[in-house]
């Protein structure tokens, strides 16, 4: 009556085999585990790729995508479509990778985005903060405010999801913007694009400072091109403040189109690309 003998009975053999076959991917300790499987500082690495590959470029072409949450099928098609475009320099994702802030959602979307041939950066969306999503975002992608230079354009990427934070966390972070403005003065000749997830005057934005954000910071960049955002789930182009600064909203993948921007030293254009 040995233990091994009973493992050999046909019924038990099947019983033991089943979990072992599937075991590898199926183990999850907690939906909000923040087990990022060793993926870290994605944005920093991608920004280095962007800066290196765009060095010396006069004309810059990038795609704007956003709000890919829970749209894995459509995002897969979107990424296949982006990969067929040889003229792209990089891709900006303006946040909401996830719908529930689950660690697995971050990993699934990272798996998809890492299929991109060109480098990409990911901003923080309001859904990405849910639960302990902020911890996942920070460890996988890095700080929620960051900036990088591509060719002759500097991209300032901001966390604007104020409703997800309390007052002790500055959202948008004016001291971060001040530091970028100081750099701006030290590096003449660079154009600036400001990217964020939630646009001013949405329910997410800290609208008490919406005016100060535009007048005190955004419009003070020496050669502002435009502002980019997501959160609206549809393509929109609006002069939000009536001051000539355009805010472009990226559609989500379900809308089956995305925006491609072309920035030259003295102008810019964009097109809506369907897939």
């Amino acid at each position, binding site marked *: *009556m040995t233990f091994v003998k*009973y493992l050999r*009975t046909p*019924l*038990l053999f099947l*019983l033991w085999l*089943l*979990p072992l076959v*599937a*075991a*590898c*991917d*199926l*183990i*999850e*300790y*907690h*939906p*909000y*585990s*923040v*087990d*990022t499987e060793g993926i*870290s500082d994605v944005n920093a690495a991608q920004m280095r790729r962007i800066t290196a590959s765009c060095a010396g470029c006069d004309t810059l072409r990038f795609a704007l995508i956003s709000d890919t949450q*829970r*749209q*894995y*099928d459509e*995002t*897969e098609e979107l990424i296949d479509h982006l990969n067929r475009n040889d003229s792209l320099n990089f891709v900006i994702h303006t946040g909401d990778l996830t*719908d*529930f*802030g*689950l660690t*697995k*959602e971050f990993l*699934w979307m990272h798996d*998809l985005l890492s299929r991109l041939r060109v480098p990409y950066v990911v901003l923080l969306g309001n*859904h990405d903060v*849910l*639960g*302990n999503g902020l*911890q*996942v975002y920070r*460890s996988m992608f890095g700080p929620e405010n960051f900036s990088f230079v591509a060719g002759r354009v500097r991209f300032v990427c901001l966390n604007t999801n104020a*409703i997800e934070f309390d007052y002790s966390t500055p959202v948008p972070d004016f001291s971060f913007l001040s530091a970028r403005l100081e750099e701006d003065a030290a590096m003449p000749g660079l154009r600036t694009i400001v990217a964020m997830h939630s646009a001013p005057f949405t*329910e997410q934005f800290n609208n008490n400072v919406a005016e100060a954000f535009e007048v005190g910071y955004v419009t003070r960049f020496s050669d502002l091109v435009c502002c980019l955002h997501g959160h609206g789930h549809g393509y929109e182009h609006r002069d939000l403040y009536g001051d000539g600064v355009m805010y472009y909203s990226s559609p989500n993948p379900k809308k089956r189109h995305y925006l491609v921007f072309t920035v030259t030293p003295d102008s810019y254009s964009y097109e809506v690309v369907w897939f």
Partner: protein
Amino acid sequence: MKSFGSDIPACLRLALFLCACLLAFPLAAQEADSAACRVDSAACGAVLAPAVEDSTAGGAGVRDSLPRYVRHADFMRALWDRLVPQYLKVQYAGSIGLVSIGTGWDYGRHDRWETDLLVGFTPKYEDTRIKVTLTLRQQFTPWSLPLKRAPRWSVEPLTCGLFMSTTLDNRFWTQEPGRYPNSYYNFSTKVRFNLFLGQQVTVSLANRKALHRAVSFYYQLSISELNLVSAWGNSYLRPSDYLSLAFGLKFHLLD
């Protein structure tokens, strides 16, 4: 104006209500027909019966001759005995912690129903703290098949049920905090609802040296309501993405 007790968490209010019910129960039982008491104090009656059987006609008469407070005490003891947990479970993974330990009750015909309470621990990984998760699980086991070739072994080819888990961490909420517009996210980050299917093998250890009557090994595959929503309409996701596997041992102590 806040209504009384509105700042007490719902679970605490439920616990207080249950305590109040238990305290009130003895009064209600006094009023009840003593027939119920006779049935439940049968064990006590059986012990006493041989000593007094000679002088009385039957068991029912014996029990009737016991003072009412003794019968009521027997009834209450039997009631509390049923609240004693009957087994111990240790589980690995399953979206409720790296390791969970718990206890529970089997009941119903052939003990086909089980209710577990588990506490699970998740290491902190890249988070700032470890997570402690409480789980309430309801399980149904429709069949238990004894193995002819191995009389001490039995197989439960299907276990199924659902469990809800809650994480003790103030970053997670059951209801959206007031700062959000109404019905902004429409789900709870704190409470997860899961469905599961599994299988189990049980080996009887009934011998003089064994600490437990039997030990079961089980595994189960579960899906949370959030992963179900993600899997719905996304052929990109495979079952290995959204299903969660758990292994566990059940030590039968009192059942």
